[in-house]
């Protein structure tokens, strides 16, 4: 393996590069479901279709082309699978350094730690809490993904027993953490068929850890603090040893060390995207480091961990080990992770117009909002989860939220009056009551004057819509 092979990045790759390696059978066999090889090539480049969909390519005849194509389309950051079956997680697989270049893949799994010196009750409670974490964010359920069992005891039999206990009570993928190969093996013996991630090989234990990774066929984290040359050397050694599935840990430091942590993560990712294969592996971030030898009040350490986690997620961590399980620490980070991994080309505004929810009739409520994507998705999710039958008028505010568009005069009484006329709502309902967002309350008098509709000032946040309608709809005649 050369350290610096110049390969086209995903931004430079053209469908022609792929096309010329495809079978190009005439007439097209269309076994993949596409019209022809060019259509297939286009989708392969944008990663909409997997190469394996092309049946002829998988035959002996095209073995060389298949291998070439796999190499051509492989992301600069290798994708590593931890766990098996339904509950496995994928780590890495990033095609680019910056989010705006191409959708980031494989949202960084968040692993919560369990120490082997915790009591059985503590362990079971913690597993339950990790599995039970749920948050409904604009219609998507956010969850935690993994458990990192760490050996604070450094006692193999204790670790083995705790790993077994954890594995019996959860199907979440595991990270087994110790620098002692004997401890790791004690854990691996009971759970290796579940393909846990081993943490970690170091300058001191690498050959024993490599043996374990090979023997039990599990992925391995390589840990060298703040020395990328040594980290890379160790990767080179392990790859040569035959361990192919690696994760990199250059160390997570807090306080004054945070600058170097950010720089190390950034240098690794930029090098990988520039073609450095030895650094082309996922990065492990450990916000749990905020808890190291600290005597401050717990809330402060949680606070620090919440901040550190968001920094690591933003600067290229592909998997994150955390200790805090408090909702206010986890929530901002699971939401930010969700956001970071969305399609960057998704527009900031949605189509304006009249939207219909459920099966509204001529007596159903009429509400109004703006076409900023997040405003619309939030309102939409709140209406749907409460199963409300209603009409929602989405005003084109140039993608501004309610507050900004009222302040900047993109949502005015004049504009609302015009939209009411043009939307066709006046034919759909027989009443003339308009529910406006609480944040647009100051427009209500003017709207009534100009449009002839009566205004009901709704809640400031759309989560209040169900209660609002229960109390105020149908409106009482004055």
């Amino acid at each position: 393996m050369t350290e610096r092979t110049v390969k086209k990045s995903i931004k430079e790759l053209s469908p022609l590069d792929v096309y010329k390696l495809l079978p190009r059978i005439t007439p097209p066999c269309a076994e993949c479901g596409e019209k022809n090889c060019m259509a297939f090539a286009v989708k392969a480049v944008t990663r909409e279709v997997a190469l394996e969909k092309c049946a002829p390519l998988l035959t002996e005849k095209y073995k060389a082309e298949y291998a070439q194509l796999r190499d051509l389309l492989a992301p600069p950051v290798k994708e590593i699978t931890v766990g098996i079956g339904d509950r496995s997680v994928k780590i890495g697989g990033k095609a680019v350094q910056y989010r705006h270049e191409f959708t980031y893949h494989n949202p960084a799994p968040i692993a919560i730690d369990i120490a082997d010196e915790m009591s059985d009750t503590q362990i079971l409670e913690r597993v339950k809490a990790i599995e039970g974490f749920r948050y409904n964010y604009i219609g998507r359920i956010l969850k935690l993904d993994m458990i990192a069992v760490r050996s604070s005891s450094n006692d193999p039999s204790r670790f083995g027993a705790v790993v077994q206990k954890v594995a019996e009570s959860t199907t979440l993928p595991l990270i087994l953490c110790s620098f002692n190969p004997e401890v790791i093996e004690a854990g691996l013996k009971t759970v290796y068929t579940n393909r846990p991630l081993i943490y970690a090989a170091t300058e001191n234990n690498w050959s024993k850890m490599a043996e374990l990774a090979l023997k039990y066929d599990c992925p391995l984290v390589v840990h060298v603090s703040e020395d990328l040359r040594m980290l890379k050397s160790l990767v080179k050694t392990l790859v040569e040893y035959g361990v192919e599935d690696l994760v990199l840990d250059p160390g997570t430091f807090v306080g004054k060390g945070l600058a170097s942590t950010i720089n190390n993560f950034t240098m690794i990712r930029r090098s990988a995207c520039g073609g450095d294969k030895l650094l082309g592996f996922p990065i492990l971030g450990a916000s749990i480091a905020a808890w190291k030898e600290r005597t401050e009040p717990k809330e402060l350490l949680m606070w620090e961990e919440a901040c550190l986690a968001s920094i690591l997620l933003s600067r290229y961590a592909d998997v994150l080990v955390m200790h805090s399980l408090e909702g206010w620490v986890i929530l901002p980070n699971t939401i930010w992770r969700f956001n970071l991994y969305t399609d960057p080309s998704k527009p900031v505004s949605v189509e304006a117009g009249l939207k219909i929810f459920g099966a509204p009739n001529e007596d159903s409520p009429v509400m109004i909002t703006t076409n900023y994507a997040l405003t619309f998705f939030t309102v939409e999710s709140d209406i749907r989860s409460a199963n409300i039958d209603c009409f929602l008028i989405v005003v084109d505010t140039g993608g501004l939220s309610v507050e900004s568009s009222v302040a900047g005069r993109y949502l005015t009484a004049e504009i609302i009056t015009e939209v009411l006329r043009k939307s066709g709502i006046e034919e759909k309902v027989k009443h003339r009551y308009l529910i406006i967002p609480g944040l647009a309350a100051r427009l209500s008098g003017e709207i009534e004057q100009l449009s002839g509709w009566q205004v009901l000032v709704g809640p400031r946040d759309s989560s209040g819509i169900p209660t609002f309608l229960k109390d105020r709809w149908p409106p009482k005649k004055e």
Partner: protein
Amino acid sequence: MANNNRNQEDKGASIKLGPKILDLLRKIGEIELENVEINAEEIEIWIPSLSPAILQQVPPSPEIVRGKPTEILKAEFKPPIQTYSGKILEVKLGATKSEGGSRGKTLTIGGERSPAFYLFEETQLNPPIVSVDVFDTEVSLPKSIRTHVQEVLGDPAAWAKLAVDKFNADAVTVHLVSTDPLIKNASARDAARTIEQVLQAVDVPIIVGGCGDPKKDVEVFQKVSEVAAKERVMLSSLTPDMAEAGILGDVCKAAKDNGHVVLAFTALDLNRAKELNRRLYEFLPKESIVMDLTTAALGYGLEYSFSIHERARLAALAGDNELQHPTLSGTTNAWAAREAWMKMGAEWEPRELRGPIWETVTALVLLLAGVDIFMMMHPAAIRTVKDVIKNISGLSHTRREDTDWISIRM
């Protein structure tokens, strides 16, 4: 020159997948591809798009029989340093006595020659700063913020003093909300008096925030510019709406004549940001322009803000001279997210921490994207962001103990 600008614009505005294939397809009639025959019909179906992808595995390297290494094989590592043709302009806020103002000290932002905190490439010249929000009238504030400013509500001068003395504000932003025709419609003269009072109460640089109504803001900014002459305040903000209404020149002239800085605001759209900057260049020196590209709250569009700031900064460093301005984040917008202020179940408590962590995370993410100045409110968020800036603005070379979190006993 015009041509050059156009190229830069293309680069800045559209960093998309596969730009090269477009050129290639355009010229398809003229070129011969090595050993490839394509018929025209096949080409038409190629539509550039960014789509959810199915990524593929690196193929296992061919089996080579080799001995297992017995010692660590040395590899070389060179920091992946790039060179940038562009540089961010430095903008100075505030003016001291010797400069004709009355500030205790001035602040300089910008000047970056590489992406944010890429210390392996460049040292951080001017660390980002925090300006604390102050309102000239009673506004509705989330409870966890209100607690900290209860005593000074409605008194912008006292509030500004609190922000500097207690919250360690680098600068203060006075939001003249009372001037909004839909709220109190306070006069430009009243607004100017408020600014004078704040200038007397504190000696840090001042940012003057309008109400959002373009016409009223121009009127207020003109008056404020005069009474605060030579103080080098920043007017927040100048918008494309002012340009459309034909009143941008008026406010720019007032800013220039009195030596102030302006904040150019656009809503998550780099092309509009560039367009507005071009209009501003007609009236103002480039060193007096800061950009606000819009800050959306965490959970409420922060990813758009994050990517637009990264794009703007990378384009600027690559040479786009219409984006080479320092940037500002209205981080207080974080409180627009329901998770920041709403009462939720017991498992999400305490709200007193959930709110400020929302503001903090919103700031940290944008700090990493290159923002130079943050408008903030909650004292805990302000302190944390200032601490993080201090910690990541310089590499500390003292040898640290290895980060062993495996053995921590909580």
